[in-house]
């Protein structure tokens, strides 16, 4: 049994007696007997390291690790440079507490200051906080920041990640804020609908869109920003930071608050966590920023140094009047992201973005050739949705899984959300497309869809069957609605 207590029983007894206690009971005499738990915990007896390791390895061994992943939908299979693990596993970073004692915590404070700077560079914002729990909760905090006493309505694009929407809804419920969804057309928020809702809801605090959106589409953010700001509401963007290696920045677009999921920046998939919540804003919103901030200052000898700052916003001073209850960040995850961004640099980040985009477009073409029609006719980054004529999703994903490939994420019986990253090779994608083609031809025999080997563009040109397209569109809208509903009754992931 490991208990990590250095002192032997004899030492413990000696210490007890040294300070005037007979035994453990005596030490705990202040705790009333009727509050004591006198039973035995329903746990196995303690175990040695060797045994614990064997047991935990057994559990890890039960999971299936897919050598090839074509699934994203909010968590992305990117390459993690060795430096990221090396740095973040150093015990000085791993086991430190929040750097309240600045004199002996410059290493951590500076690393956060560097992180804040990098996030500002990526987003084009003026202020980044020290990080939050994950992308979804960061988006929820962004929404909270946008609201005030008068303005408590938030417009969310229907093309947001449904998991992000869920967290926003959960947070908003507590805060008494109202969520209104802005409908989408062809996979992107409908500008007309947004304009209309902004008119109908004068208490609107802000509008939040995702960039690229849940379906991988890069929406016309400039137009949406312009409409939003014209109505006097704040423009919020939820971003994939890796895509910001190339895309026009939220700063350039005119966003007021930016949230994002930092997982693509060197964090493993890890069954969904720990991830990294990015949150940044314009300078004017600095004092309503949620979470920790590190600032530069000088020490008593005039040397540069870093401290936690603007703590007047925070809960340990403001208590119930704080901007949020957040009192930690994901410092180690922010460190990982910093090391990632320092390792790739501007050129490497661009390269990663170009690789992701290029591979996704190649995959889309190959899947179109295999018979999976693109669901939307919009520019996309590294994710896209396909529609099948038959309800083939399950068959396709099973066939891929049988070949060691985690296929795209099922949106419906007909729709799949695919993703490609720099880790996917041409060969892997060709193999996946061949498996898809085989599955589809096995399912339906061939009708008038795309012939195998056709490219997406060719297929799109050919698909003149309006009814099919409409059907696909409807299904896709339905899936979207279901996904963004507050509580689905039951959800099966396949």
């Amino acid at each position, binding site marked *: 049994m490991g208990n990590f207590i250095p002192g032997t029983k004899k030492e413990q007894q000696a210490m007890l007696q040294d300070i005037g206690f007979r035994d453990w009971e005596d030490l705990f005499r202040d705790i009333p007997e009727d509050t004591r738990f006198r039973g035995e915990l329903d746990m196995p007896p303690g175990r040695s390291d060797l045994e614990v390791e064997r047991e*935990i390895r057994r559990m890890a061994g039960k999971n299936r690790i897919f050598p090839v992943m074509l699934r994203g939908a909010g968590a992305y299979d990117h390459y993690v440079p060795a430096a990221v693990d090396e740095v973040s596993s150093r015990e000085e970073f791993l086991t430190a507490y929040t750097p309240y004692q600045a004199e002996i915590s*410059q290493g951590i404070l500076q690393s956060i200051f560097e992180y804040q700077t990098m996030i500002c560079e990526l987003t084009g914002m003026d202020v980044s906080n020290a990080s939050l729990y994950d992308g979804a909760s960061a988006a929820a905090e962004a929404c909270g920041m946008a609201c005030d006493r008068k303005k408590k309505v938030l417009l969310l694009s229907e093309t947001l990640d449904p998991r992000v929407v869920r967290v926003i809804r959960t947070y908003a419920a507590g805060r008494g804020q109202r969520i209104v969804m802005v409908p989408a057309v062809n996979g992107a928020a409908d500008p007309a609908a947004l304009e209309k809702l902004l008119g109908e809801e004068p208490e609107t605090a802000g509008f939040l869109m995702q960039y690229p959106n849940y379906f991988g589409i890069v929406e016309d953010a400039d137009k949406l920003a312009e409409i939003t700001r014209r109505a006097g509401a704040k423009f919020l963007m939820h971003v994939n930071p890796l895509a910001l290696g190339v895309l026009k920045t939220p700063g350039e677009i005119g966003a007021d608050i930016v949230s994002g999921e930092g997982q693509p920046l060197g964090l493993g998939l890890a069954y969904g966590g720990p991830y990294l919540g990015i949150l940044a804003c314009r300078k004017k919103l600095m004092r309503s920023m949620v979470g920790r901030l590190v600032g530069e200052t000088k020490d008593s000898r005039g040397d540069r140094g870093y401290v936690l700052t603007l703590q007047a916003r925070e809960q340990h001073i403001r208590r119930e009047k704080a901007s949020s209850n957040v*009192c930690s960040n994901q410092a180690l995850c922010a460190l990982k992201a910093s090391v990632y961004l*320092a390792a790739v640099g501007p050129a490497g980040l661009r390269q990663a973005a170009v690789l992701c985009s290029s591979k996704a477009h190649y995959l889309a073409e190959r899947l179109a050739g295999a018979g999976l029609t693109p669901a939307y006719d919009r520019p996309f980054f590294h994710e896209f949705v396909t529609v099948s004529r038959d309800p083939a999703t399950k068959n396709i994903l099973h066939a891929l899984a049988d070949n060691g490939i985690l296929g795209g994420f099922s949106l419906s019986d007909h729709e799949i959300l695919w993703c490609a990253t720099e880790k996917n090779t041409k060969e892997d994608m060709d193999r996946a497309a061949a498996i898809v083609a085989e599955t589809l031809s096995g399912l339906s025999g061939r009708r008038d869809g795309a012939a195998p080997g056709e490219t997406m563009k060719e297929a799109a040109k050919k698909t003149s069957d309006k009814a099919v397209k409409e059907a696909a569109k409807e299904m896709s809208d339905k899936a979207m609605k279901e996904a963004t509903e507050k509580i689905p009754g039951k959800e099966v992931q396949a």
Partner: protein
Amino acid sequence: MKLIFERSVPGRRMSLFPECDVEECLPEVPMREAPPRLPEVSENELDRHYTALAREARGLNDGFYPLGSCTMKHNPLLNERMAALEGFTGVHPLQPAETVTGCTEVIDTLEKYLKTITGMDRVTFQPAAGSQGEFTGLLLIRAYHEARGEGERNEILIPDSAHGTNPASAAMAGYRVVELVSDENGMIDLEDLRQKAGPKTAGLMLTNPNTVGIFDTDIREITAIVHNAGGLCYYDGANLNAVIGLVRPGDIGFDVTHLNLHKTFSTPHGGGGPGAGPVACKSFLAEYLPGLRAVRGEAGSSDTWQYVWEKHSIGNMTGFYGNFLILVRALCYLESLGRDGVPELAHNAVLNANYMMAKLKDIYPMAYDRICMHEFVMNLDSFHEKAHVSALDVAKALLDFGIHPPTMYFPLIVPEALMVEPTETESRETLDGAIAAFRAIYEAMVKNPERVKATPATTPVRRLDEVTAARKPVLKYDFGGAE
């Protein structure tokens, strides 16, 4: 120390990604005007930069860390090895449930252990931190009252000694905070509570032992008063380390609690996170729990796993299933300790705190002169009055002894407070060393208070100007030139 941006030279880079093996292609959308000014460095330079930062950081591996209320116990090394297994790190959160049964076993096993430790019936691992756990717990309470048509209950009772997160969480959940007064022992004033509990009361938030390190002996009466008023009782698990295995919140009237895996359950603090703040509750609240849960399919299809929601789930706190890799570490820890190791840790946490208190109380005034639990609070008001030496000064002086200072100026009800929490993983020699340091600082203060106020003298930087930092915030590197 240079910033990484100051080590950057245009054009330098590492070679991480392959050439593109398909046609290069970006969407036809507006692109950023200029690349982000990220550092451009070689791996050698990068490695040295972060090594230099690490050398100016302080981990538990660097020495004693008696930070009150933070439970800076040893983080077992095996846990890190286990959390790094590819079988965990390589799992996509949206994989089919039947391909992640190892993760599910981790979660289910940890839930089982936390249930028996808390005396509760169900656990959710959604919350990524203690504060999010509080928020979650309050949303459960809110959902409960609303379902019973008692949505008008809009007050949460919180003692004045509470950590600021409690009232902040209550506010986030839309509640009005009603502050309870502590008596001269730092315990809840029952009369005050009786007056404040009523038809508006949604619930009570309490940590026990409380933030001054004292176990509130009226706890059963306290929870009964709240229950009688129709409210629910929330146990803030921040101080569970003192009584784990000895007292179970579920046995003494609490309905819901969060646990800090990064405190009581030995997962590393990471310089401020990630932690995990699972919430345990009684069965009548289970239907409101957030997040999806993987369960084995109905009989007859035992190989089919699926994800299900609770009937009236409040939603999601985080995007997927919380900070999973933190759960792996906590599970390792509990597998190591086992049923007997759990109460032993509480014994020794309390022993170490009382030992240090006993050896210091002749010269360091204690806020409460009674048996403490896992931590104790000094009140250095008299130091300040006599020698103009503040709690801050004493804390900074400890830095020169290679000891991480205690928590300062908390709880708010104690002036010039220093809160010391040694934890059970410290040896007697370490405690004796810290006691000697405290006593040496006292001697120095008596002889020459200015010497104490001039500390620290051995750290990479000296005392920092926090006022200017807040008044003229510089929150990112200035690259110079036009921005």
